[in-house]
Structures are given as C-alpha cells and as structure tokens.
C-alpha cells in the first residue's frame, strides 16, 4: 500500500511539474552552463596559463571544473526542490493536507517527493553530462559515469533539507539555508579549486561537507582520477546523509501534519 501511494504521489508531482517546468529551466540548465562557460573557459584560460596545471592533475581548468560544477548543481537542485516546494506543500498550497485526506500518508509523501527529486536530478545530470562533453572535453563515458554520483550528491542534500524545512514556520529559514549553507558550500567544497588549496584549518571543514564527497566522486568518475580517500567512504558518507535525512524528514513531517 505505502509503496503504491508513494508512486502515486510521485506521479502527482510529475504531473504538476509538467505544467510548471518552464519556470525552472533557467536555474536548472542555463545557469550551470553559463557558469561553466564563464568560469571554465573565461577564468580557465588564465588558470591554465598560470600555476593551475600543477594542482589540477594535468587537466585544463574547464575540464577540472565541469564535474565539480555538476555536483554543485545537483546540490542546488536537490536543496531547492526540497525546500520551497515542501514549504508550499505544508503551508502555502497545502497540497500535503489535500493528499493526506486520501490513502497517501507522510511516508508516501516523503518517499514520493524524494523520488521526484531523484528523477529531476537524473534528467539534469544527463543533460549536463552532454554539456560537459561539448564544452569541457570530458569523454562520453566519463560524463555518463558522473551522472550517478551527481544524483547521489543531490539526494544527500534533498533528504535532510526536507527534514529541515518540515521544522520551519516560514521562509526566513530557507533564505538562511541558502545564504549561510549552500552558497559557501558551493564556493569552498572543491568545486572551483581543490580543497587542499584552502587554509589548513578550513580543510577539515570542507571534508565534513557532503558536497566535497560528491565533488570527489563526480570528478573521479568523469576524469578517471583517484579520490583523496577511498571512494567507498565517500559513497557511504553520502548514503548516510540520505538515510538519516529521510528518517528525520518523515518524523518532522509527521509531527507537522499528523496533529
């Protein structure tokens, strides 16, 4: 029963998305491509002429950057889809209340919404993989191999962000999440430069963030390089974020909706 209603809820999310996808095209596809072009090709031309080549394991900057940007993009999409739409479901549209008057329950909502986010991430990552091939000279095999770690990275944010959003009263907490959480992570988790370039005291902070693990995995998959720590640890770390996040999301939403 619960599995069936999760799928039904996921289907509802997709039907809604089909009507509203235009609104998300810019942030989903255009922004990352602009970033890759500006930073990768523009700034990259300076990096490649300087000392960059030494720390970038011999790759052109745009090639080095592209997989990191994939992970950072899935983080943003995972976080975005787990925050504002969840707040809308709870409070603004109250679509969760509507769904919960049917056989759909909190578990189905969390599972269904995470499933929807996974599909969104998958679609984005595949499109982005093609862009990496065209703009960043990543091999087709490498680009496709980067899709799975990209999706995993996004999910490692989506699940805990649903848990966080379910405990908020209003949108202020979401703005703070982006301002003080997502933007710094985006900049300092190894996306644009190796975390080893950070001041020594900041390095361990970067290693604790799920994004760093996601970037490591995505880059290793795309470029065929090694990871700083065994990849299985990176994967396990992200899976823990997904798992713990899912449990906390169910609990938070139940406390919110089943009163």
């Amino acid at each position, binding site marked *: 029963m619960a599995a069936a209603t999760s799928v039904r*809820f996921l*289907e509802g999310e997709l039907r809604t998305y089909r009507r509203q996808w235009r609104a998300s095209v810019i942030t989903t596809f255009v922004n990352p491509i602009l970033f890759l072009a500006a930073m990768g090709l523009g700034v990259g031309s300076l990096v490649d002429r300087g000392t960059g080549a030494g720390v970038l394991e011999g790759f052109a900057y745009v090639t080095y950057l592209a997989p990191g940007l994939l992970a950072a993009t899935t983080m943003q999409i995972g976080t975005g889809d787990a925050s504002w739409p969840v707040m809308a479901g709870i409070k603004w549209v109250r679509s969760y209340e509507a769904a919960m008057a049917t056989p759909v329950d909190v578990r189905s909502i969390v599972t269904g919404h995470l499933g929807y986010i996974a599909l969104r991430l998958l679609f984005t990552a595949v499109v982005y993989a093609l862009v990496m091939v065209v703009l960043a000279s990543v091999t087709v095999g490498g680009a496709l191999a980067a899709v799975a770690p990209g999706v995993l990275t996004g999910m490692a944010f989506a699940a805990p962000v649903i848990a966080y959003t379910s405990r908020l009263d209003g949108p202020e907490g979401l703005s703070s999440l982006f301002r003080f959480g997502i933007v710094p992570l985006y900049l300092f988790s190894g996306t644009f430069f190796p975390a080893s370039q950070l001041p020594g005291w900041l390095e361990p902070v970067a290693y604790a963030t799920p994004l760093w693990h996601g970037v490591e995995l995505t880059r290793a998959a795309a470029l065929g390089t090694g990871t700083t720590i065994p990849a299985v640890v990176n994967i396990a770390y992200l899976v823990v974020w997904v798992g713990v996040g899912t449990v906390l999301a169910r609990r938070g939403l139940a406390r919110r909706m089943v009163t």
Partner: protein
Amino acid sequence: MTNPLVQATGLSKRFGSLTAVDGIDFEVHRGEVFGFLGPNGAGKSSTMRMIGAVSPPTAGRLLVFGLDPAADGARIRSRLGVVPQEDNLDLQLPAEENLLIYGRYFDLAVPVIRERIDRLLAFAELTDRRKDKVDILSGGMKRRLTIARSLINEPDLLLLDEPTTGLDPQARHLLWDRLYRLKQQGVTLIITTHYMDEAEQLCDRLVVMDKAKIVAEGSPKELIERYSTREVVELRFPIGERDAALGRLDGIATRTEVLPDRVLLYTDDAEPTLSEVHGLGLRPESVVERRSTLEDVFLRLTGRSLID
C-alpha cells in the same frame, strides 16, 4: 440494524493543555446527513479530522466503517471524501488536473477518472471552466470544485467542514442544492457548521457542540421542540428605554432572553404575546415575529449566540 458508519465513545482530543474535544459520544448511520453545530472553537473541526483519520484521538474509542483509524487509516481514507474548511486546491493547475491528480492518489485508473471528471464537473456546474487555472475561479466555484474533487473516489461517507463559510448567499444556495442532491443519491454526509440555517436545511440529525462537549442531540425539529417554544417575538427598544421595559415584560412569555441589541420573548403563539406587549403601553422601535430556530436552541443551551 446495520452497523453505524461512524461510532465514537468518550472521544477526546487534547493539544497540550488545551482540550479541543472532551469525551463525546455519537453515531452516524448510513444515508443520513449528520451535523455538528457549534460556534468557532467548539471542537467541530478537531472531531472531523479524527473521523478523517488524519488526527489520532487522545482518548476514547472511534470506529469509522468499523475500522480503527490508528491502524487502518489508509483503508478508511480510501472510502472517504473530505472537503476541508479552507480549500486546498492547487491554484496553479487547471480545474480538471486537480481532480486527475487527486483521483490517482486513490489509485484509480486514468480512464475511470476522466469519465468521473466529466460527470463531477457537470455536477459542480464547472464544465466550461475545466481548463481554467483554479486561481481565476470565484470562491463559490473553488468550493464546488473541492466538493467535486472529494467525490472522485465515490466515497461512502463525505465530510464537509464549514462548507459554505465565506460564500455569498447565492453561492451558498447553489452549494446547498448540490449537497441536497448528494443526499438524495444516498450519500452519507457529515457537516460541521456554525450557521443554524445550514444545519436546519441539510441535517437529518445533529449534535450541538459547545466548549469541546456535545450539549444536545436530535433532529432540528426535535431540538427546537425540546429546547425552545414554537415562536419568538423579537423586540428592539430605543436606547435608554430597554431596562425600564424589561421590568414590565416580566412573566408575559414562557422565557425571556436579553441580548445586547434585542429582547427575545419565547412563546407558543406570537400574536397574543405581542398584543400583551402593546397592552402594557410599550412601544418598541421594531418588532419581529418568527418561528424558533436552532439559533434559539443554542442560545438556550449555552446562553450565547452561535456567531459572535
């Protein structure tokens, strides 16, 4: 006799130190329209949410379709239609899409839903608005769409929480007509309302709730007979003259209620009572003779009006 669709014994709901529902007993039978009448905050919506298997009771026993909502919530909800107090339609989606998505939550096949959408939109007089975004529909249309949505699974029991609050009179009457048709089709309805005319029009049987408790139960007619007189004379006096008049009105009616703006004289026959008032030389500014209503029942039971 068949088992009741809903059976509650000592049902309670507490939120922290607040007791929203305090040990109520009631039964709802197949085919009837059952009402919860009471002012805002009486515990009607909390009771509805418990019946709807979305809010676990704090104490007491509740069976819906003979099932325990705590254990069989999804099975119960699959047979319920719910119209919440505030519409929770997706305003950005077309009317028909709201129904389609909702129907899928019940795991109904898409062709079955499409066929029902045609029928339900016609029933709700929204056929020509099916492609419109819900956002641009009027309040009455949104309400009718919510009712259409609640019928998508052909429920055995329909829960309507304050179905006409916030609607203009014309929209209310259209909605009552639609609910009356459902009743004719044999759908069991549970309605909460703080409008006595709504309760009187629609309900076969109702309970009056006040401060988390049920204070009376019966058909509208029974309640009026039991707790009020057949007729009422309403008098309005010029400012400053009321108190003097009150002393002289003593004893001329079965019962007298003094409201901030009016004096109500409860009597079995308004005509002679009014003659007596005039015989006393009293000249009220305005006079209304009317039948007793559930409003009078509520006033008698609680000492307050339904709508404050």
